Structures are given as C-alpha cells and as structure tokens.
C-alpha cells in the first residue's frame, strides 16, 4: 500500500525548503496537516499532492427543496431495544 502521509522533514525535502518553512505553511493553514504533538505533524499524502497542484477553488452553494427527511441511522438497529451485533456481508 502506498505511503499515506509525509513527515514535515519529508515535505521540506520535496519542496526544497526548511522544516521551519513547512511548519509555517501548516500553521498558516496553507498546507493541511494532522497534529500529532507540539511540533509533530503528519501531512496526508493526498493533501500534499493537492497542495502541489495549486489552490482549491471555492465552490458556490445552491439550494433545492426536498420533501423527505434524511435517515442518518440507516441500517442501524434503533428503537428496537439492544442492538444486535452488526453482521454485514
């Protein structure tokens, strides 16, 4: 399985910048990263690929009217006492 995240050191090497610069990118919100500890971050590989390909265009929002209501617990045993263990084929 391909590697799922990069360390800040790996990102710095890829971008040819210092790790401090990478940390600044992360702290400014420019580069999405998952905080592991005070100075330790994981940069998801897809996030880094997206970062390198340029900024994300913000999508607009449209509205539509619907008659139904969403079923967020679809497939769950709700309202029937103690749920049975989930058995999914």
């Amino acid at each position, binding site marked *: 399985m391909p590697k799922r*995240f990069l360390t800040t050191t790996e990102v710095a090497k890829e971008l040819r910048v210092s790790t401090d610069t990478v940390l600044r990118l992360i702290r400014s919100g420019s580069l999405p990263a998952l905080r592991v500890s005070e100075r330790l971050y994981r940069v998801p590989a*897809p996030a880094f690929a997206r970062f390198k390909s340029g900024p994300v265009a913000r999508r607009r929002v449209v509205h539509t009217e619907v008659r139904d209501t969403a079923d967020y617990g679809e497939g769950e045993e709700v309202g029937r006492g103690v749920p049975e*263990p989930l058995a999914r084929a």
Partner: protein
Amino acid sequence: MRLTSVALDDYVADLAALAERYGITLGLTDGEPLTVEIEATGSRRFTILGTLPAGRQSSNAIVEVAETWRPAGTDGYERSIYRYELLEPQRDFRRAFHRHDDDYFARRYGVVVHEHCEAPGGVAPCAHLFDPPVRDGYRAIELLMSAWVADPPDCALLPCLETV
C-alpha cells in the same frame, strides 16, 4: 453553534474546500456547485461525499460528511444531526461519528452521540461506541483523515455503549 442561512452556506463551501485541500476527491465536476437541501420542516441539510486513494482504484476509501441544521431563532440554524463516515473496503474498516435519533439514544444510553468502529465484513462486538460530540464538520474531517492516515485502531479499546 448557530449560523444564519448565509453563514451556513459559507460553512458548507468552506468544509468542501477543506476536504478538497486534504486531497479528498469529491464526486463533483470542476466548478459544480454544492447543494444544500431545504426540507419541508425548514431544516437544511447537505452531504459532502468523496474518496481517498487506497492503492487500487476500485477500492478507494469513501468519506462522507453529512449534517442537518434545524431552524433556531430568526434566520438562524443549529446543527441537530450529523453523520461523519470513513469506509475503507481495502482495509475492511469503518470509522463513523454519529448524532441521530436523539430521543432513543438519550433514553437508552444517556447520550445523544455515538460512534462506530468495525470491520464491515465481519461482526462488530459493539454496535454503538461512545466518545464526546464532534465539535463541527472541520473537526470531523480531521478525525476522518486521522483515521485514514493511521493504522486502524483497536476498536475494543473504545467505550462500548451496549455495556453501560
């Protein structure tokens, strides 16, 4: 958290942008808008659905961020229901954070939120797990990305609601 209808639209757009910046591929074409559905009750709901790579195109991980916001005050809305899901066929793993059917879960377990952590192809020893509510959709995306990045957790270590 309470938002006006305009702020709620901004929140949805910001959530989708964050998901895309994390590298989640949304099921939308370039420039295709996001949809906020308005129910007859006045509640507003949206689903941001996307995928993350998993090595083989046919088994991408599925990411879902879905919320319903009910009317609150004048032109205000508050998040009343959510479903945040990561489903990974390749690793036979599901991680989910839910709030729905408040009355049932409050009556049955004394909480309104629950989680799932399971191997979808097998049997989950505990159908409903507990952890604190997820603050908002931004935090949800972080949680789902963290679950995708890391090795699957030991689901047995999470507090099971069924034994409460």
